[in-house]
């Protein structure tokens, strides 16, 4: 496991990926720090990471696109399968390496507020709470990106799918508010989501039957709830999306609330995505 971890970390820093990722993040940190703290004269450094989430749409696909897809393409996954390593070890080692690559710019970002304290009162608990949430949120997005990368052996496809997923995660709360505030609107939105989900299940398991079953069960449950308690569907879809939105969770920290449920939420996303990645790799042996 240590071997894979070391190998991965060194591959990010012998190539350009690690540097491009870090440089991009730090460039925008610098710009926002300039605008808010130096030109604007605010002492709230937490506004800087709060302005950065949109960058994830671009840098997460760049960072995670090759992590597993490249192994498949170069057939080096056969080496990993034949070495005395379990897939869980491989996936965790790879994830840890990604988190180290992400930690480097985040650690540098943590120096800025310390410098700012020399010029004014910076409320550090909120700043570092926000930075921790920022790191974990990035971790959750990286875990999602890694799972997507394990689904294909083409980096470009992985990057494309990742880009779309990041866009959806970023804009979903805004979009859902426009689309579906009425009860019927929520119902339609949920039905569409359920259909998409069952298509995804059918595609992943390569079994029309299981996809169809999941779809029917979900639709039946949604319609049943709708007929029983129509009133609770009022504004339901936007509020679900709001609860599920990774970025919304993060903004709570910026407002100075250290939200334990938010931390648990990020960690659970990481856990689920790593589990799915392991399954996706194990499944390949059965195909």
């Amino acid at each position, binding site marked *: 496991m*240590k*071997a*894979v971890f*070391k*190998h991965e970390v*060194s*591959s990010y820093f*012998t*190539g350009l990926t690690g540097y491009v990722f870090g440089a991009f993040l730090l460039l925008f940190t610098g710009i926002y720090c300039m605008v808010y703290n130096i030109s604007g004269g605010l002492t709230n450094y937490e506004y800087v990471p709060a302005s950065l989430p949109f960058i994830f749409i671009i840098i997460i696909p760049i960072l995670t696109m090759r992590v597993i897809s490249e192994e498949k393409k*170069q*057939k*080096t*996954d*056969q*080496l990993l*399968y*034949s*070495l*005395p*390593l*379990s897939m869980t070890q491989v996936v965790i080692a790879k994830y840890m390496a990604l988190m180290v690559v992400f930690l480097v710019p985040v650690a540098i970002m943590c120096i800025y507020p310390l410098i700012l304290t020399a010029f004014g009162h910076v409320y550090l608990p909120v700043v570092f709470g926000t930075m921790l949430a920022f790191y974990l949120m990035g971790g959750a997005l990286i875990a999602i990106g890694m799972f997507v990368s394990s689904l294909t052996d083409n980096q470009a496809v992985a990057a494309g799918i990742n880009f779309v997923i990041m866009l959806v995660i970023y804009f979903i709360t805004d979009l859902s508010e426009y689309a579906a505030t009425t009860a019927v609107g929520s119902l339609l939105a949920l039905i569409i989501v359920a259909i998409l989900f069952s298509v995804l299940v059918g595609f992943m398991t390569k079994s029309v039957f299981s996809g169809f079953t999941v779809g029917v069960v979900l639709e039946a449950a949604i319609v049943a709830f709708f007929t029983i308690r129509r009133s609770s569907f009022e504004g339901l879809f936007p509020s679900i999306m709001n609860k599920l939105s990774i970025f919304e969770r993060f903004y709570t920290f910026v407002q100075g609330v250290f939200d334990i449920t938010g931390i648990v939420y990020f960690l659970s996303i990481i856990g689920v995505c790593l589990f799915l990645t392991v399954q996706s790799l194990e499944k390949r*042996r*059965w*195909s």
Partner: protein
Amino acid sequence: MIVEVKNLTKRYGSHTAVSDLSFGIEKGKIYGFLGPNGAGKSTTMNIMTGCLAATKGDVIIGGYDIFEQPLEAKKLIGYLPEMPPLYMDRTPLEYLKFVAEAKGIKKEDINKEIDKVMEETMIKDVSDRIIKNLSKGYRQRVGIAQAILGDPEVIILDEPTVGLDPRQIIEIRDLIKKLGKNHTVILSSHILSEVQAVCDTILIISKGKMVACDTPDNLEKLFAGGITVKITAEASEKDVKNICKEIKNIKLTVKENGKYSEAVIESKDKDENKLCRDIFFAFAKNNKAIIEMTKSAASLEDIFLELTESETEEEKNADKESEEGDDE
């Protein structure tokens, strides 16, 4: 038995790549998997090394089941897949270091071990060039180095000499022979002479089934059913046919080629010298000259073709039957 394969079956959807394959591998010998393309050699090797799950059956390596106790079993195996699994942006030295660490070789032994395998596979001169820039032969050798790193008991090589030049092929064969002294080596190939030259035991696989398993000599003896004499004579096709009527118990095929005729005479008779004498005097009596005469016993090549071809036909019939069965 260091490796035992029991009733191994692998299906891809409706296509059966390996069907009910069973064999045992004894310690300290070199085994050769022989079979045409698509016979299931690579699939079998992938399953034996844990890269692929079997639909049915067991693989036991040194007492450990590869599916139940994969980590223990994999420690005993070094594997070179069909395409060497190399990280293109690394140097052979970095790559071998990674593999050595992942194989759990002790820290103080790593450099010594890497040195040893680089020596054996003759990649020392390229040890700090990026793998991407190496030729196919060197890449193949880095792949072999990776497989034999850490002295695994069982070394499995899938077509180890593909892409090498003739001199390298000889070197790698020598290396395999040397490895065979202390290790169990299983290699696959579709090149007969290679398997014949290196292996103690040959397993011929066709359409996912084992059709023969024996030493090269025994296989030849077993299948040496008759003898064949090829002649070129200064006579027309009709003449040759008439002359050969005088010789008993033979099968004749003739082709006229200008002034000469080429004939293949096969006989079930075991005494090849007697057949040659008969042919010679028959032609001499009729005043026709034999320009060239060669005798050949059934070679391993013929056995291979015979075995894999007959199997193909049987398989076709079986497929037809099973398809009919599926329709019901």
